[in-house]
């Protein structure tokens, strides 16, 4: 059936090509049949008009896109620096739209206006230093402004003051999921290395390290509104990228090193759900999901869950087969809610003790195993 359909489509395309060539052929009517393969006045005229039409196509398509898809963009940034990023983005976008509109006009209009005609002679115009200077210097000035603004913002984002009141959170990536580690009351993350990974200590924290005693490992990221969060980012296997689009934040996760990104969340999840654009978006998505569900249910499958807005952490660096589904929910709380939530989370060391405490003998066995493991590792390293 499908192959029949494919053949049918191919035949249709064939007919379409044939008809379209006919159109170009028909424009030759009244002239000596021309099979030279070189454009004649008719060709120039038809294609000149088409070029002008194509300009219209570009403009209309742009306008249509803006109306139909303009609302896809992420909307209100949920971080302090996100506002600056969006500002710069807006300026750059306006500039791009302006230059695009003007240059495409000139390009296509000239093609139309100066389409070749028998007897028309082109102007021998090879050089003009003033013009060259103009379109060198104007981009220089515009770019200088953009570069300076960009670099200023970049430095604001990427550097933070150690004196500042910040909190440290570790983001931990692996195929294909995320975890987060909170530094605890001492606001210092305990040492960690993949060589410490064992049992429930899935992020490889050095449990001997005093700083690690109050560390908490969770699989849902909660952030307090209004506090600068410094993410220390690790990966255990391949490259990943911690992408938090609503916060205009992204940083790669690199095995063997700790990378860093910091921002201040400014809108709680609850507040964001009240945002008009978000409400509109959520309703639209739920309509789509409801429609899809009708088909699914008809086929005997489960309906889709309705969507509620949440901040997300996505993986944005190709990391393996299930790269497309490596996500973690982010919740921005008010500071008091955040405190409450954090207090409810157990520390890793307590979880570890709990998991390994009941049977004393097993702990012993585990301990010996660990020793064997580490020697193996050392042996491998030496090898």
């Amino acid at each position, binding site marked *: *059936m499908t192959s029949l359909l*494919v053949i049918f489509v191919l035949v249709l395309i064939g007919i379409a*090509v044939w008809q379209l*060539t006919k159109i*170009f052929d028909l424009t030759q009517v009244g002239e000596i049949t021309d099979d030279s393969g070189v*454009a004649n006045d008719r060709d*120039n005229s038809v*294609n*000149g008009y*088409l*070029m002008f039409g*194509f300009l219209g196509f570009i403009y209309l*398509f*742009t306008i249509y*896109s803006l109306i139909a898809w303009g609302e896809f*963009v992420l909307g209100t940034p949920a971080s302090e620096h996100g506002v600056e*990023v969006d500002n710069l983005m807006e300026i750059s976008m306006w500039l791009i739209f302006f230059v695009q509109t003007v240059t*495409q006009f*000139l*390009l296509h209009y*000239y093609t139309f206006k*100066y*389409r*070749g005609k028998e007897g028309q*002679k*082109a*102007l*021998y*115009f*090879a050089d003009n230093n003033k013009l*060259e200077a103009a*379109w060198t210097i104007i*981009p220089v000035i515009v*770019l200088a402004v*953009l*570069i300076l603004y*960009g670099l200023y913002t970049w430095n604001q*984002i990427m*550097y933070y003051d150690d004196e500042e009141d910040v909190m440290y959170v570790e983001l931990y990536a692996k*195929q294909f999921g995320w975890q987060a580690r909170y530094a605890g009351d001492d606001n210092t993350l305990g040492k960690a290395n*993949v060589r410490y990974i064992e049992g429930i200590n899935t992020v490889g924290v050095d449990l001997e390290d005093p700083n690690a005693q109050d560390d908490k490992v969770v699989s849902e990221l909660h952030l307090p509104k209004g506090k600068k969060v410094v993410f220390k*980012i690790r990966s255990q*296997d391949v490259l990943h*990228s911690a992408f938090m689009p609503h916060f205009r*934040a*992204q*940083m790669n996760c*690199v*095995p*063997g090193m700790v*990378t860093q*990104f910091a921002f201040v969340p400014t809108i709680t999840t609850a507040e964001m759900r009240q945002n008009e654009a978000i409400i509109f978006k959520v309703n639209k998505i739920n309509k789509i999901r409801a429609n899809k569900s009708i088909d699914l249910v008809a086929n005997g499958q489960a309906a889709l869950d309705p969507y509620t807005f949440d901040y997300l952490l*996505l*993986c944005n*660096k*190709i990391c393996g*087969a299930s*790269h497309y589904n490596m996500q973690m929910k982010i919740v921005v709380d008010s500071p008091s809610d955040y405190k409450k939530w954090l207090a409810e989370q157990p520390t890793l060391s307590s979880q570890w003790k709990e998991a390994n405490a009941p049977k004393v003998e097993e702990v012993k066995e585990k301990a010996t195993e660990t020793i064997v493991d580490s020697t193996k590792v050392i042996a*491998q390293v030496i*090898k």
Partner: protein
Amino acid sequence: MSHEHGHHKETFITKYIFSIDHKMIAKQYLITGLLMGIVGVVLSLFFRMQIAWPEESFEIFKIFLGENFAPGGVMRNDIYLALVTIHGTIMVFFVLTAGLSGTFSNLLIPLQIGARDMASGFMNMLSYWMFFVSCIIMLSSLFIETGPASAGWTIYPPLSALPQAIPGSGLGMTLWLISMAIFIASSLMGSLNYIVTVINLRTKGMSMTRLPLTIWAFFLTAIIGVVSFPVLFSAALLLIFDRSFGTSFFLSDIFISGEVLHYQGGSPVLFEHLFWFLGHPEVYIVILPAMGLVSEIIATNARKPIFGYRAMITSIIAIAFLSTIVWGHHMFISGMNPFLGSVFTFTTLLIAIPSAVKAFNWITTLWKGNLQLNPAMLFSIGFVSTFITGGLTGIILGDSTLDINVHDTYFVIAHFHLVMGISALYGFFAGVYHWFPRMFGRMMDKNLGYVHFWVTAVCAYGVFFPMHFIGMAGLPRRYYTNTAFPLFDELADVNILITVFAIVGAAFQIPFFWNFFYSIFKGKKAPMNPWKANTLEWTAPVEHIHGNWPGEIPEVHRWPYDYSKPGHDEDFVPQNIPMKEGEEQLHH
């Protein structure tokens, strides 16, 4: 150097297969490149179908991907990544580097500078055949059980180094690396040959400032290639060491499949630096030849001198130089020092200046011209259009601040496909339409050419323009399906639209291929100089002969852009026509 043309006997093998004649090698490159292009495009249609109709069963997948890669006609998720990887590799290296540069550098360098052949015909032949071998190896990786390389065309380790991470990083990746190593050797031999030929074998009177812009572009492309390809070679070599001999250049502290690996002290960021030291210049290796072809075609068909010949040369040199110091803009958020981010933002945005100069010069060349809208000219104008549309978003991606949120999203896909993918392809097509008579002695059908251009032009915008919007919605690239995120549900319709445009656009390449192969055998016999062009290749006889010109090599008396020069009857004055008495010479 002298060729005793006509004295030695040619067999089928020395003429068509192991030829050392640059014109035949150009044709070999062209046809191989086009065939690879078909593979690259078909792969892209497959994964576009998966994005538009996720996890649906397709009869066509059963046929082409088989039960292993597409059980029950549903594409496997790692095979999706494999297709993306091989599409990128084939298009960037095999089609737009070897296919484009290999074809036109080989064809035009000797013919346009007035040389009998390349400096080393043998090396030239070797270059093609190594390219051919690398094509075969790359294609063969599509047929192995574990699937081809699947780590993206950028093959970042550790994903590309560990078969535990993705099946394609086993034998598939090994074949990828071997293929690319051979490809790089091929490319270097080609490039060295081009450089030596341009420097040494120019005919009498052909000073550097009388070279057609095509030659300037090929010359600088070859230099960039020689500077940067060896670095990719070293990266590939070190990666082979890490994969097979247990070294730790790019790997450290890895826990995978329940065990700690022994690697310690390496850094994937080092690989990224090495990769992009080639990877970024590579996009200029792709686009500069297209720029050269387009400059030549626009001037010829506008019947006007190219505007600002010297500015064009200066800007192409500036682009070539800058291209080697901007690679870090692919790595703003790789974890490298943010100070480097600032440096690379600065150098990257500088490239906009020579690019703007070139775009304005092309537009000014059209102004008050007498435009002959041949298919080649349409594709050249299309090139300028997509180069502007795609290039402008470079201002956003090159700015480290803005890159944070659009990095690796569909916004990037839109940007680079327009500015270097589609543009370079347009340059390629323009070149094929324009120099087809020179290559095969016959004309291509112009009406099929017009249909080809107009449908392609609409579809190219239809495919890539909407991607800006889904990219700004935060949709990451290289996702097998977007259904894991309800947030992206609203983008599903756009993805279907894009795929439909892609399928129609791809289908309308069929008239081109028909036109191409039909015209080789049945096209109308071409006159010597069908486009009334000035450059030397059109002074050589239509029938190809060894050594290009039957008698003396023509001597050059003027620059190549004396179109519509006052004081001449014709609207073109070929380079080999001596200056009239008292005629003003623009460039020496």
